[in-house]
């Protein structure tokens, strides 16, 4: 068993799979033999990811059963509800398919409005946050306030009734300063991702293996 617990094995698998994907992505035309192996490995990934959903199910069940056993204060009652709804949807979905009227009813009349309500609460928080945060305390804050107001009014049909310039200036803010800043951000993210990828392939980044014992 100690052989299977060695960290070199997953690092080796990562190295082979990573280089396989890289060679396939960049040298597909030059090395066509890699394509077949790469496609097979990608199909494996789809199957493994499906198993990950099962792992998620087991994990949620374990966590909430733990809360139930310990009668965690302010939590265990919600754990019962969570497990009940989760397994109800799984049972109905598995035995009656997702087109079953009960599944559709649960999704449309319980899950969808609750999820939409959670998301719509943002409207209240953002309104309050905008009112409190948008203060022209200095020049930078004024710029943020002005661009926020302009893009906000650009998105509302009433904006251009108030002033025809809102859509024009708003579009400029969106396509020039916004795109410039977003590109800089994206390039930084990509450079970071490349360095993380290289570190992972070389076995220097081991976070995905869990804690070292």
């Amino acid at each position: 068993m100690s052989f299977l617990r060695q960290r070199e094995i997953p690092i080796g698998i990562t190295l082979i799979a990573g280089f396989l994907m890289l060679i396939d992505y960049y040298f597909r035309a030059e090395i066509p033999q890699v394509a077949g192996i790469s496609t097979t490995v990608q199909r494996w990934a789809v199957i493994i990811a499906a198993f990950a959903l099962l792992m998620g199910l087991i994990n949620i069940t374990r966590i909430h059963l733990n809360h139930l056993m310990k009668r965690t204060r302010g939590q265990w009652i919600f754990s019962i509800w969570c497990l009940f709804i989760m397994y109800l949807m799984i049972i109905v979905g598995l035995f009656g398919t997702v087109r079953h009227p009960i599944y559709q009813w649960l999704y449309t009349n319980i899950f969808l409005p609750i999820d939409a309500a959670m998301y719509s609460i943002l409207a209240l928080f953002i309104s309050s946050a905008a009112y409190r945060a948008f203060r022209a305390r200095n020049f930078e804050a004024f710029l943020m306030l002005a661009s926020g107001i302009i893009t906000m009014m650009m998105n509302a049909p009433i904006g251009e009734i108030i002033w025809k310039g809102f859509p024009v200036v708003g579009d400029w803010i969106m396509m020039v300063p916004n795109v410039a800043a977003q590109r800089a951000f994206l390039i930084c993210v990509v450079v970071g991702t490349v360095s993380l990828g290289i570190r992972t392939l070389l076995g220097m980044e081991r976070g995905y293996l869990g804690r070292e014992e």
Partner: protein
Amino acid sequence: MERKGFWDRLQSIDHRILYAAVIVVIIIPLLRPLGLPITVTDATLKAYKAVDEIAKPGSVVIIAFEFIAGNWPEMGPIAVAMTQHVFNKPDVRIIILAMGRDEGPILAERTLRYVDKKGKEYGRDYVNLGFFAGGEAAMAAFARDIPGLVKKDYYGTPIENLPVMSGLKSLNDIDLFICLWSGTPGWVEYLRQWQTPYGIACVGGTLGIVGPGAQPYVAAGQLKGLVVGLRGGGEYEKLINRPGEATAGLDAISTTHILIFVCVILGNIGYFAARGARRREG
């Protein structure tokens, strides 16, 4: 305790009053629509034109539903309008799928309930392939070898029995990709696995909050057009001449935005007046 002056109070209106005001200004226009005119922006027009020009008779269009139930109020109208536009086009094959959000196929079904099929038949003209786990790996596998990955549709029908899938071997056989996404996984993953390696024409629809982050892809031409938020949905509804939920909701957007605008102005008046008063007091 020091009593707050008028200008200080103007800066710190109770959040409960603000919440109540927001709810009121949302409800009133929904009950009594104002019917404010909608002007179509350039980004939405580009998306409409791209769909109109690329989805020609004989073409194949993929629509990816990569959003969740909570996004429905904003994404639903966009999804309905864009899907309707594709259904309006004669002799176009439509493939619906999801590779990032497992709720995608259910929301696609919901979208299809609002779409006039224009005589298109399930299995012959359009199909819902369901959800594929694996994220980017699934995207890459689909792009490379469609029959290798897709064995059945969402309802368990083998793809050999679905004429809509005949002759589709890889992403090279697809003419247009419409990505309806609300976050990660979403467009960026498709960009890496579909748009960049295969050069497929892409059009997007996303949340108002995600829109600014996606603008570089529009500027670079990787997205031929982008429909953003409820406003974009309303504009698209206007373009396909089918007013729907987005058009109805846009009045509420106007009233809430005006309320926030007024509150921000009041807050700033309070801030500068209070600062001036403190300076005068020394």
